[in-house]
């Protein structure tokens, strides 16, 4: 574990060398603790897979003073067992009809049905939220579905697309460029700036995908 400046107004807490299944929830708990203890000094706290980035108010503090105040919190956090809460479980409907489904199945030497069973058969954990508003990185994808990102990213991935890349899966909350493989479509809106909270998923939450058909996709409000 180490603390290092990340530019003049942020401090990076490097919490592990490699991500593991329990880490996101622990990092989320640490973010809550820091917010509680250092509230007015904190501008934002951004969890990464193995890190927590603390944007701070330079008029109120600096990285040396913050480091001193963080060290006891981190010592406590290190010896704490897994948090008692297990992370909220979201069951998200998906119509497995993404543009790349057939190609991904071929590349993984699986039938489409096997691919869907593998993808929807496990529980994922939100490891980080970033790239775009509400874009939740979910891990860990079955190794049999692991593919590198597309060589050339698409300039336009439709909002609601369920995608995979390497050992991660995610839903693009809104239409954006993207380099992941599209395997399905979710009828739900996963980020809404007017909603409270704007993003249904939080770091450390659990996600399970429920395979639905086109009729159910439309019934849930999915645009054809």
């Amino acid at each position, binding site marked *: 574990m180490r603390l290092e400046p990340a530019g003049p107004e942020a401090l990076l807490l490097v919490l592990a060398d490699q991500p593991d299944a329990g880490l996101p929830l622990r990092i989320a708990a640490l973010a809550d603790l820091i917010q509680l203890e250092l509230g007015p000094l904190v501008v934002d706290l951004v969890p990464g897979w193995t*890190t927590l980035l603390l944007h701070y108010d330079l008029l109120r503090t600096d990285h040396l003073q913050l480091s001193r105040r963080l060290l006891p919190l981190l010592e406590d956090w290190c010896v704490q067992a897994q948090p008692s809460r297990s992370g909220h479980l979201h069951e998200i409907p998906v119509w497995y009809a993404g543009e790349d489904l057939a190609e991904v199945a071929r590349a993984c030497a699986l039938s489409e049905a096997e691919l869907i069973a593998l993808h929807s058969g496990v529980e994922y954990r939100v490891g980080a939220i970033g790239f775009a508003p509400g874009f939740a990185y979910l891990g860990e994808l079955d190794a049999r579905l692991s593919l590198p990102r597309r060589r050339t990213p698409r300039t336009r991935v439709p909002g609601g697309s369920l995608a995979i890349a390497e050992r991660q899966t995610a839903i693009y909350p809104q239409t954006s460029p993207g380099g992941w493989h599209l395997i399905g479509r979710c009828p739900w809106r996963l980020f809404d700036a007017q909603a409270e909270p704007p993003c249904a998923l939080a770091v450390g939450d659990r996600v399970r995908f429920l395979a639905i058909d086109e009729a159910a996709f439309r019934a849930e409000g999915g645009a054809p």
Partner: protein
Amino acid sequence: MTGLAVIRPGPFSLLQDAGRLGWQHLGVSPAGPLDIQAAAWANRLLDNPRGTPLVEIALGGMELESALDTWVALCGAELDIRLDGAPRPNWSRFALRAGQRLSLGFARSGQRAYLAVAGGFRAAPVLGSVATQEREGLGGLHGDGRPLCAGDFLPCVPVVLPGAASVPWRFVPDYRAEPCLRVMLGGDAGDFSVADRQRFFARPWRLSPQSDRMGTRLSGEPLRAPARQWSLGVTAGAIQVPPDGQPIVLMADRQTMGGYPILGWVHPLDLGLLAQCPAHREVRFERVKLGGMQEDIREFYRFFGR
């Protein structure tokens, strides 16, 4: 409410404030003005707090008609400023009467001009800010991230100020000069070779035309980037080095997380100079220490407000 009517929007004019802060944990980009110094001066000339909503005008070419008597200020890119055909000075405030037309020519030097109005432009905030983030569809006049267009109406209130005022000339930057930007090393700098770290500072870098509000792309003899890492939170000014070895400096519309190795950070008060550079301009970097950089930023906040 009364205000200014947009007759011609110019190629890319955006309502901005101090940025959408506090939502990066949900992947929401802060946005805000690219040149925080020029924007801060425009507001200060009108006694507005820093971060009062103003318009960032890329390249100029905007025309507005006022429906009220008020005061405006322009700072940033050097361009022809006319009020009903009569010239008005840049880096200054001046009165605007109901029915008058304010027209801006195209930028002769610099890329972004800032138009502030006394009391600020009014728009409904999205996640606490009116800053326009086009990619994310957030903020702006209509809340959906759209740039300003002809027919838009920028609401503001009538204000009377005692007289003209200008930014002291010694604070007015020369956007024609080839800038030397201050950089602190950090992040993954230790994973780059010593030769590459030296080369980054020794050689000029050329601004790529692919630059945008998200990132300024530099081209030059490629650096050898260390291996990709697990995605982590990133900050403004971060110098990312993707596998092609051509650095990208993250700007106001940056993403909140990134996985590319980071060589260091450009001084936040120098990012405006970078944003004012046209494509193909050569820029250089000089190494500074964290402490001095922090002192500069504190001074900026104390003078202009947090």
